[in-house]
């Protein structure tokens, strides 16, 4: 049999086909049908007094149905199910995006007004109305977060190294368990812990930047442990054995082979854990308090931080209410920008420090 006749036979008789030829919807038909569904939804919504929300709800349901029915009729059951699930998944994604988009929009809309040079240069010292800025709060947040990082990273990283490289049996299991418990501690409890600790040490009425750093560390350590542990586990055992076989002691193997191999992941994990605590409000509210002037010394008296700054601007506006609200929104915007910048830094770290394959 020649190939030509074979291929005509294949097209005509489905029983013998090695690969079944299937009817497909034209390329843009599903999108067209979906848009038609949306249009119908708009019409339906207009019947009961037009609104965007009901248009989208009716439209998505009708559009999905239209695509499913058409696909079922033309393409068969498997393909139709595929399209139905694709629509459902996309819809779920859309729903998940709604709060994010709405939040970013609102914060940008209200926060951009005061995102000026003054906001970065002025503190709230002797400001009761308009003007002023968050210079003191920005620096306070940076100092306290840096201090919390300096406390958490050594403890967290070493705990992770212990768990992956050295730990066995009961002790390892219980450390893992308590780290898991710590992950779930409400942030206000971490704040109260630090508050109680420093009150015991230094008496009543003590308010220090370092108290906030300790509270943040309680929240940060379990995150650092968890992410570093996962990353260290990914380092292939073969590399450890290669080092042992060269007569390298275990601790040197950890320091010079395991950590450098995992450095990208460790950097990423630590950066994300900083992002996790930089916006914490409650623990700072009760441990660090707030001042209107600038204080760079975390070991002496109250400090301002962005989240607490935003909180007080919002809850205790003075006479010029709008000016206070504007500053609160701008502080919120700045926090979001900080967290986003940290996420970008994390991505850059994992890009640039990853072991090079050279291919």
């Amino acid at each position, binding site marked *: 049999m020649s190939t030509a006749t074979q291929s005509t036979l294949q097209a005509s008789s489905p029983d013998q086909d090695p690969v079944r030829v299937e009817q497909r919807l034209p390329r843009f038909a599903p999108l067209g049908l979906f848009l038609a569904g949306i249009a119908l939804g708009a019409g339906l919504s207009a019947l009961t007094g037009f609104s965007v929300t009901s248009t989208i709800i009716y439209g998505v349901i009708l559009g999905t149905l239209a695509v499913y029915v058409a696909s079922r009729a033309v393409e068969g059951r498997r393909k139709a199910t595929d399209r139905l699930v694709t629509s459902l998944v996309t819809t779920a994604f859309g729903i998940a995006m709604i709060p994010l988009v709405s939040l970013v929009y609102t914060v940008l809309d209200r926060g951009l007004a005061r995102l000026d040079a003054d906001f970065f240069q002025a503190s709230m010292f002797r400001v009761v109305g308009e003007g002023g800025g968050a210079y003191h709060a920005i620096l306070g947040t940076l100092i306290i977060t840096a201090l919390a990082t300096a406390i958490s990273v050594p403890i967290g990283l070493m705990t992770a190294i212990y768990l992956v490289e050295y730990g066995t049996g009961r002790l390892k299991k219980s450390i893992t368990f308590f780290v898991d418990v710590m992950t779930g501690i409400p942030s206000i409890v971490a704040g109260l812990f630090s508050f109680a600790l420093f009150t015991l040490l230094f008496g009543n009425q003590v308010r220090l930047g370092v108290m906030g750093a300790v509270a943040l560390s309680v929240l940060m350590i379990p995150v650092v442990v968890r992410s570093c542990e996962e990353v260290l586990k990914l380092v292939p055992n073969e590399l450890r054995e290669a080092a*042992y076989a060269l007569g*390298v002691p275990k601790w040197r193997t950890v320091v010079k082979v395991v950590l450098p191999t995992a450095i990208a992941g460790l950097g990423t994990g630590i950066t994300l854990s900083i992002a996790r605590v930089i916006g914490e409000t409650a623990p700072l509210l009760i441990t660090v308090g707030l001042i209107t002037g600038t204080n760079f010394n975390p070991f002496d008296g109250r400090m301002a931080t962005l989240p607490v700054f935003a909180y007080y601007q919002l809850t205790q506006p003075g006479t010029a209410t709008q000016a206070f609200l504007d500053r609160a929104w701008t502080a919120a915007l700045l926090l979001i920008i900080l967290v986003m910048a940290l996420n970008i830094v994390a991505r850059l770290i994992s890009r640039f420090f990853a072991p090079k394959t050279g291919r």
Partner: protein
Amino acid sequence: MAKRIEVSDLNIYYGNFLAVEGVNVSIEPRSITALIGPSGCGKSTFLRSINRMHEVLPGARVEGKVVMDGQDLYGADVDPVNVRRQIGMVFQRPNPFPTMSIADNVIAGNRLNNKGMKKSDAADLVEKSLRGANLWNEVKDRLDRPGSSLSGGQQQRLCIARAIAVEPDVLLMDEPCSALDPISTLAIEDLMAELKERFTIVIVTHNMQQAARVSEQTGFFNLNGVGQPGRLIEFNPTEKIFSNPDQKATEDYISGRFG
């Protein structure tokens, strides 16, 4: 300097599981000893117990004696780290350090142990070891590229260069060619023939032709059934093993009548 290794009554355990039982063998210096046998009979386990790599696994332990130059390697006052400096190892899968360049991989044994070296000494050692591993000509123009940029066979020779750069007395190789193509395999076999002038070499291989080609002595490991310990059934000159073995099991295995 190549050294003789005497193993007596060696039992090797993973936790409570006796994996290898009652090994008695004497490994000659400046020769290649091949270990053959079916999968799971304990060849790797035995090999790793010679340089005390076995005990890095949790629960793994050893009974018996491994004596090198009159010194029991499992003696109470012997540091396993020192044993591993004298007995190098090449693994089944090439495992160069991904964070290091080709040159740094070669001198990793010195660098990781913080041995101070002059730049020129380091460069000499890199060249000497890479020449020793027959890799110099292929990589001399790209010594600062990552080790993982090489092909599988080149990576394995890089690992051999890394192992011989610390000047061990003995070189253990666990199926060093099983992940390689025939040409790289030949390159490594040639290399072994050169290396045996300076080192005592023990090689585990699944490839009986390879054992016949490269080794002077051959040991045949076998086990009676799943869950039973592996044993060294026969240890004889390679020629004898492949022409006229003492044991019926050995003859069955090398002629393919197995299982």
